């Protein structure tokens, strides 16, 4: 009898299969992962892969031809407008499905479903901010607009047409590695994606940090640390522009000083925050300043750098419009780009549209809260958070007249304790039909069309730049913004009555704009949109240095070529350093420096103020300035609460330029009165310790010290581009920081035959196993551009066309 060996060998076989097909024994199911016909090997795209295809979908009304060029850019030609969005959805899914879904899952506070309870805090933060609530309101708004509804429905149908026909082996590799499957797309997911952009671009606030700073410092010190005015500011709408008086005149409550400005309350909340450097540059020069006589438009949005990239390049062509540019996998239309008549781009407005109100509940049930001298009923929204391998987590969020109570004793960002209730009032909760702005821009022929288009963009507020072939250039600091009284929403506000609520929105005809200005250019780089003559309160903290340099150069330049614009867009000149280095050079006590310190001081002294990749001066300056900031302020902050605002990036430089006896230069911990020279010298000595260490590690060159990288969304290093030899930085037009920077660079010359260039740090394919995954990265690092080819009918046989996909019903 061979029963025993049979049982034994059967057991071994079953054991092997179980071991290799699950993660009970191994951290990953190696068998299913590595099986060559279904696993990851199927994601190893053939070097000569043929993307051509003939596809039939009954959802289509007409025929759609897609020509894929040698960079894998689809040029989509549809007979019917909505068919183009169907195919856009299909292609977004074909090349970028995993990232599209991940971004919407993260936006919806559903990350725990995939990565487990380590994402629970993130999920609760997003649910409580009302991300899904906001997306649902958006979706309802889209329902009212048949054009945008049709566009979204077609897009959704296209994404699902791809998902429905997706086989196990074709699943994007990330699904295989993380062990889950895509779900169906819907219009809510598109809305969630757009809310994610709203979070990223219009979700920043420092209300808790500012409240604590206000309570910790004296009013005089507070104003010195967080000034309302920047002397060096060159606003988007130039100084001297005359504004009409405000149509809406917000009135501060009678008790504003006692219960708001002078209230010494502390708030113990740590928010999850979008990157505060989510900024950008854009400008347009009129034909009077260019060699060709045609306007040139440029844009480079600075966002977190990731693989797969946030952007996907496409041409969408129908009988009613023909647009080319960067699209968002997750949403229909071209977002930043150009059409046959015009070009358009965006920078972030950075206005404060997220405020907090302290709510007083009657009792722990939170069923009623005190508002306008009465108990008002709370609405509850139960958030069901599914967690991988764990039971669901139920989070009951209270909704007030202001918005959801985001932070309370049950949730403080998971890091500190609080016994107060803070409701969030966020502009992104309001109904708006923002996709209409992009739809209409894609169709826009002239300035009037542009104006009608961008006024639909409410949140996130964006500085929208425009140029068209008829010669017009324009910019609008666009968005629907609350009209605030001075200081409103800088701190947490009382939520016991209506007096602190937003009193209205700034009317669209009072949004700052510039149209064909005499200076021949318009520009923005996230600086304050206007100076204090603008009749509405604009808040405090705006980055202003890139804008200074761009405006200086554009003012000087004439006879401008496309190459000049590329050179400006990739400029690594550091205008902040230009203003700050003399402070070091003129105040350093050189006689107190030893040989090593003198050597580094000389590097700084002879530095050309350019943050290029090989620059050592840039590293010396950056470390020295960081230590100078600490030297000046650390003593004042020594006993500060953990959650507190540090001075704005421009505060120290602006203050020292104005007053060399700036109050905070003195170290309050010593008997002596320190001077600017003392601080500069002490800071530099400290900086040399770090510089010396960096030098020993071979990291003194700026690019090596800064270490720019583009991480895969999972942070898997093998799927990332690391240690990129690129210069630039926060204060350079080329704002390439370590994980953040120009996510799409575009230059469009609107000659009769449009000449356009662009690049993003990634590649068209989201598949790490494709040669098109990261093929633009090195070119982006080198500051080079791809030619953006607006394909025309009749060019089907052009050698750039490599594959053809035919979609029909």
């Amino acid at each position, binding site marked *: 009898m061979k029963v025993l*060996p049979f049982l034994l060998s*059967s057991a071994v076989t079953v054991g092997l299969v179980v071991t290799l097909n699950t993660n009970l024994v191994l951290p990953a199911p190696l068998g299913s992962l590595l099986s060559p016909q279904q696993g990851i*090997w199927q994601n*190893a795209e053939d070097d000569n892969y043929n993307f051509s295809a003939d596809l039939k979908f009954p959802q289509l009304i007409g025929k759609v031809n897609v020509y894929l060029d040698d960079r894998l850019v689809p040029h989509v030609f549809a007979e019917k407008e909505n068919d183009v969005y169907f195919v856009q959805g299909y292609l977004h899914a074909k090349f970028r499905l995993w990232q599209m879904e991940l971004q919407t899952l993260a936006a919806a506070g559903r990350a725990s479903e995939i990565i487990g309870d380590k994402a629970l805090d993130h999920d609760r933060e997003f649910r409580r901010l009302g991300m899904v609530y906001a997306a649902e309101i958006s979706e309802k708004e889209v329902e009212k607009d048949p054009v945008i509804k049709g566009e979204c429905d077609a897009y959704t149908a296209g994404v699902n047409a791809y998902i429905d026909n997706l086989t196990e082996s074709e699943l994007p590799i990330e699904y295989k*590695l993380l062990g889950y499957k895509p779900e169906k797309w819907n219009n809510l997911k598109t809305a969630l994606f757009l809310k994610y952009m709203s979070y990223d671009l219009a979700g920043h606030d420092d209300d808790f940090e500012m409240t604590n700073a206000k309570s910790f410092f004296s009013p005089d010190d507070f104003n010195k640390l967080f000034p309302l005015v920047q002397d060096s500011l060159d606003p988007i709408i130039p100084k001297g522009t005359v504004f009409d008086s405000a149509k809406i005149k917000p009135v501060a409550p009678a008790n504003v000083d006692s219960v708001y400005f002078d209230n010494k309350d502390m708030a113990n909340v740590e928010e999850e925050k979008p990157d505060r450097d989510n900024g950008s540059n854009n400008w347009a020069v009129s034909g009077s300043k260019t060699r060709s006589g045609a306007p040139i438009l440029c844009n480079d949005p600075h966002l977190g750098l990731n693989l797969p990239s946030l952007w996907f390049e496409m041409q969408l062509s129908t009988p009613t419009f023909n647009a080319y540019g960067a699209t968002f996998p997750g949403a229909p239309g071209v977002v930043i780009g150009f059409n046959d008549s015009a070009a358009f781009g965006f920078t972030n407005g950075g206005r404060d549209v997220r405020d907090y109100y302290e709510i007083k509940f009657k009792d722990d049930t939170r069923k009623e809260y005190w508002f306008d001298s009465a108990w008002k009923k709370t609405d509850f929204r139960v958030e069901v958070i599914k967690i991988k391998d764990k039971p669901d987590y139920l989070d009951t969020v209270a909704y007030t007249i202001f918005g959801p109570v985001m932070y309370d004793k049950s949730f403080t960002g998971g890091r500190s304790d609080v016994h107060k209730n803070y409701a969030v009032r966020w502009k992104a909760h309001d109904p708006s039909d923002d996709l209409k702005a992009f739809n209409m821009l894609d169709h826009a022929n002239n300035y009037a069309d542009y104006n009608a288009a961008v006024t639909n963009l409410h949140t996130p507020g964006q500085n929208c730049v425009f140029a068209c072939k008829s010669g017009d250039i324009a910019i609008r600091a666009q968005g629907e913004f609350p009209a605030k009284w001075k200081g409103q929403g800088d701190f947490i506000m009382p939520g016991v009555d209506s007096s602190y609520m937003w009193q209205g929105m700034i009317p669209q005809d009072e949004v700052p704009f510039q149209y064909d200005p005499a200076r021949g250019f318009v520009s923005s780089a996230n600086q304050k949109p206007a100076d204090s003559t603008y009749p509405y309160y604009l808040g405090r903290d705006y980055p202003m240095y890139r804008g200074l340099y761009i405006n200086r150069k554009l003012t000087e330049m004439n006879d401008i070529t496309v190459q000049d614009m590329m050179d400006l867009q990739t400029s690594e000149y550091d205008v902040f350093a230009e203003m700050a280095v003399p402070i070091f050079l003129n105040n350093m006590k050189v006689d107190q420096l030893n040989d090593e310190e003198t050597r580094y001081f000389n590097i700084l002294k002879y530095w050309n103020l350019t943050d290029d990749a090989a620059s050592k001066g840039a590293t010396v300056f950056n470390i020295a300035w960081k230590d100078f900031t600490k030297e000046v302020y650390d003593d004042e902050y020594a006993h500060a609460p953990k959650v507190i605002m540090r001075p704005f990036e421009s505060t120290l430089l602006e203050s020292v330029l104005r007053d060399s006896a700036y109050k905070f230069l003195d170290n309050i911990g010593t008997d002596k009165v320190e001077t600017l020279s003392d601080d500069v010298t002490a800071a530099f000595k400290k900086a040399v310790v770090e510089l010396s260490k960096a030098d020993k590690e071979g990291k003194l060159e700026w690019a090596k010290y800064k270490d720019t990288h583009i991480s895969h969304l999972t942070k898997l*290093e093998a799927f990332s581009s690391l240690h990129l030899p690129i210069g630039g930085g926060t204060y350079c037009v080329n704002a390439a920081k370590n994980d953040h920077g120009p996510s799409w660079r575009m230059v469009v010359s609107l000659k009769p035959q449009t000449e356009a260039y662009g690049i993003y740090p990634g590649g068209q394919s989201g598949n790490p196993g494709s040669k098109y995954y990261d093929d633009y990265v090195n070119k982006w690092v080198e500051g080079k551009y791809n030619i953006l080819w607006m394909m025309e009918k009749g060019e089907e046989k052009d050698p750039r066309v490599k594959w053809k996909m035919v979609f029909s019903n």
Partner: protein
Amino acid sequence: MKFLISLIITAALSFAICLYCPWWSIAIIAFIVAVLIPQKPFVAFLSGFFALFIFWFVLTLYISNNNEHILAHKVSMIILKSDNPFALILITALIGALVAGFAALAGSFARKTK
């Protein structure tokens, strides 16, 4: 000769079944082939083992070669923590080989229990 025939049949049917069924159905194929084609247990093991070793090795090598090993470089970093495409191909082949080998062994014993 029987060895070669069962090796080829195992490999061919494994390919076919994996077009429609999960990867581990190679075990069922190897088992059935060993039941139907009588061989000594150890020989049956070897025919199952080498059928899948050779088939998966050649297939994976072919796929990866046409990909210029772009993916294998990256995935080997993730799974093996070292940049070694060839090792990843070898491990893939070994996984198929072991599962099919033991399934064939079981099949061969099953035949003898009758």
